């Protein structure tokens, strides 16, 4: 493969848009952070410790940007900008929730953000320039690894808030999202290349790899993850095969699964009842979601201001119900902003997928993006009572190290895929904002 190598100055210019967007993101987060700090301490403390999360964010931005320039990376810039805004917003909200004040050096959550970025850069380096194709033969091993991980959690983990965690509150179950997407992309790419439309022989490997992790998830009673992964599965099947009958199949499966869950799990039954008839038991099962909705109602259109709300009245505010905190403090408008950034991620992600000629890359990118989209929908849907509560976290924003790491890992992969092989430097140069401006004059 012949490619024109960008020189460093060109690379610096090429990633100019990213730089502008990073700067704006930082300014927005800075304003929010100062507001939170002023609300909390009544002023701006002189010690640098108070600004640590902000400084970490700034450093992360600079390091990532410089690293990408040095790498002469030509992946999607707008995707990265949205990732960075959302990550910064997550830091802002978690600072507001006081997450970094009681930091425990032993816990991975403290290092989650820098570690996640490092992981993202590492994945980009590893899989860029079309090297992600190396993952394709690993489809089956990925599924096996997912099953193994889930088995290990089941054996060694301890229950906490209805889910299993390894010691140190690590929930490695998040990583199986990525593993299973690689698996799914590998299997479905074969379908597409062969032009096969889901015969029994093609379905067999899919069932082989998919069923075992699902059974383990059921055993862990991680119904949220189960719902998420299967929703993605159904959609990906439909997209890969071009048959919308899979959606009907998925709907039927959801109904059967829902009925089964309803009859066999008291836990799920309670959540379902709280969702369908919230005012039947307002002080019991529906308390959480009604308190969250009350917070959002108190926020109204413009919110009560960052740091001005009362998240102490919202249950599990810093993780599952973080969207309610946003709703209270930044209002309906703030929620719209956050959703807009997620939509940017999703649109750009699908654009990356749609621009790829290779079925495996296309399906992997689409799988990662769809997982993110459904994760967001499941989380905010649970908070606003559009769906039953599932315990799925809001990507980038919810408190939780393993979730953040997995999200960065997924986007690292997506960015690596977005750097299409064979693109010449010259063709890309027209994206330089400075050149564009000169042309305009």
């Amino acid at each position: 493969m012949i490619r024109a190598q960008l020189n460093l100055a060109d690379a610096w210019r090429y990633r100019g848009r990213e730089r502008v967007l990073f700067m704006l993101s930082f300014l927005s987060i800075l304003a929010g952070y100062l507001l939170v700090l002023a609300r909390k301490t009544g002023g701006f403390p002189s010690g640098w410790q108070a600004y640590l999360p902000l400084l970490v964010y700034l450093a992360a931005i600079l390091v990532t940007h410089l690293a990408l320039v040095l790498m002469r990376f030509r992946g999607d810039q707008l995707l990265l900008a949205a990732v960075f805004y959302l990550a910064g917003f997550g830091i802002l909200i978690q600072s507001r929730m006081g997450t970094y004040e009681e930091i425990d050096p032993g816990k991975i959550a403290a290092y989650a953000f820098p570690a996640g970025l490092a992981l993202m850069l590492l994945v980009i380096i590893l899989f860029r320039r079309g090297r992600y194709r190396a993952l394709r033969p690993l489809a089956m091993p990925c599924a096996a690894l997912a099953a193994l991980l889930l088995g290990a959690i089941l054996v060694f983990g301890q229950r906490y808030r209805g889910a299993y965690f390894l010691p140190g509150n690590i929930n490695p179950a998040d990583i199986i999202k990525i593993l299973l997407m690689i698996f799914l992309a590998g299997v479905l790419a074969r379908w597409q290349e062969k032009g096969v439309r889901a015969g029994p022989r093609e379905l067999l490997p899919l069932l082989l790899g998919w069923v075992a992790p699902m059974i383990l998830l059921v055993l862990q009673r991680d119904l949220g993850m189960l719902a998420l992964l299967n929703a993605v599965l159904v959609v990906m099947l439909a997209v890969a095969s071009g048959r919308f009958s899979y959606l009907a199949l998925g709907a039927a499966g959801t109904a059967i699964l829902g009925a089964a869950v309803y009859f066999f799990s008291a836990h799920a039954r309670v959540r379902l009842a709280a969702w369908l008839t919230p005012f039947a038991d307002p002080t019991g099962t529906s308390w959480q979601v009604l308190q969250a909705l009350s917070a959002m109602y108190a926020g109204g259109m413009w919110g009560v201001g960052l740091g001005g709300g009362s998240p102490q009245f919202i249950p599990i505010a810093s993780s599952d119900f973080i969207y309610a905190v946003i709703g209270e403090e930044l209002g309906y408008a703030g929620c719209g902003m956050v959703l807009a950034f997620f939509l940017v991620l999703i649109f750009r992600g699908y654009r990356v997928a749609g621009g790829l000629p290779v079925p495996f890359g296309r399906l992997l990118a689409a799988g990662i993006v769809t997982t993110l989209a459904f994760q967001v929908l499941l989380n905010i849907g649970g908070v606003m009572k559009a769906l039953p509560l599932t315990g799925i976290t809001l990507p980038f924003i919810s408190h939780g190290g393993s979730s953040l790491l997995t999200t960065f890992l997924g986007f690292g992969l997506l960015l690596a895929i977005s750097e299409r092989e064979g693109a010449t430097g010259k063709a890309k140069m027209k994206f330089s904002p400075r050149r564009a401006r000169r042309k305009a004059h």
Partner: protein
Amino acid sequence: MLDALNIPLTILFFLFCFWTIALIFIYGRASSPARPLRSAGLRWLLRGVFILFLGFYLYQATWQLAGFARPGFMDFMRKYSRRQVNPAKEMARGSICDRNGVVLAFSENLRRRYPYGRSFCHLLGYADPMFGLAGLEAADNAFLDGLTVASKGELGRFGMNILNRREAEGNRLCLTIDGRLQAAASALLRERPGAAVALRTSDGSVLALASAPSFDPEKLDPSIFSPAGSVPSPLLNRALQGAYPPGSVIKIMVAACALESGFDGLIDCPPEGYTPPGRYHQPIRDHEYYEHQRRKTEWSGLGRIGLEKGFARSSNVFFAQLGVRLGSRRLNETAARFLFNSKLELFQGSSGIIAARQSAWPVLEPEDRGGMAQQSIGQGALLVTPLHMALVAAAVACGGQPYAPRLAERTPPQLLEPMMTPAAAEKLKLLMRHAVEHGTGRSANIKELNIAGKTGTAQVPDGTDHAWFVCFAPVDRPAIAVAAIVEHGGYGAASALPVAVGLIKQAKALGLMEPPPEPPAGHESGSRQNGTKAERALQAPLASSPGKEPKP
């Protein structure tokens, strides 16, 4: 320092946030000009995800912005939200005011206040956290809570409430009631079980709709909800829901029927009364018969009399025979035109309606002469509501075709189907005037009021008769029609007449007897105005002493 920084920092936050999004959008458009996604599946996926996001975001608005439209949610927040400021705790229900803008009900610290208390308790009902809603409060609940978007004003209020929930307020309901007249009616009833209704003849406005006994809508006493209370059913709005035998008041309708059929003869009224042909019928006698019996004197009967004298003297013997002569077909047909057995709706609210109970006219069979005789003097299974009788008086006053009674200013005046021919109405006017000048209603013959009316004394199985008086005034240019009933009040002229006459006196004092300055078509303006807090404070007191007791 915080206060100074709060707004600029928030604005900066949103500004840069928005800037970032806008720039991403611009860059996105510039860099990849509408390159279609290669796979149709992905295109559909993108659309589907976008629609889901949009749908969720809109659904969020139904809680976050328009949560006040969910009563259960509001209730939850009022009880369990521990936030110091939750707009749910500040949302004020709209006020209710009378035709002059005097506030009759308003919200203060989440409590419903009724400054004129008992006088309006049946009409307005109550909005109580324990006992729920009743009356107009129930019928127009959604409107008062600001949840309706039927008109431009309501839509505006709905939008304002979404944007500024700290000042959120419901819509203001403006009634056609005159608060001072209503207070007078209530005072005239003196808590005796009964009702008084006043209608404006020119547009059907209900000026007063009082019922007694009353209750205090601010401090609901649980005992009023139990049937075995000491006071006979204070919750019942007798003006609309009370079903009473009309007694001689029905003779207005029978006379109308007779006039329309061209009756112009004389009927012999012997002293021993009239016994309808057929089995098991008791003789129908005039009230004078019983008076003479009590005084142990001789009653010689009215002799051969015509409609004018029979009406003025309210002769049962005359009307029983008249009814039999008119026959079942004519009587049934007239009763149907007089809106018996049909629904009488006063108010179409956002959450319900206010309607009077159906007046019951048992349809007569052609052979049932006993029934004809009984129903022609207002007895038997015949039942009417006070509002219905006021409407009948209004029909006579309006030349046979009255306006539909209406409670809210926002309801446009609407003519009902004619109840009788204009000629019959004109003659009936004179008959009713004659009854006041020379007949049973002589105590109502007050020169400056010029009342035309009809007394009624309805026999009831348990205890003393119900007393009725139905009238309108002034007779030459009618402005107001009134019906009053006092349960077990005895002779109609004795207890109900002073209530009705007192009401008309008060109406004249309030200037309600003047002809309307404008035709009633212009009544829609201002009917959906929304109250403001300033207006709530401006509560002009009602007339300090609502009508002195008129001497009978």
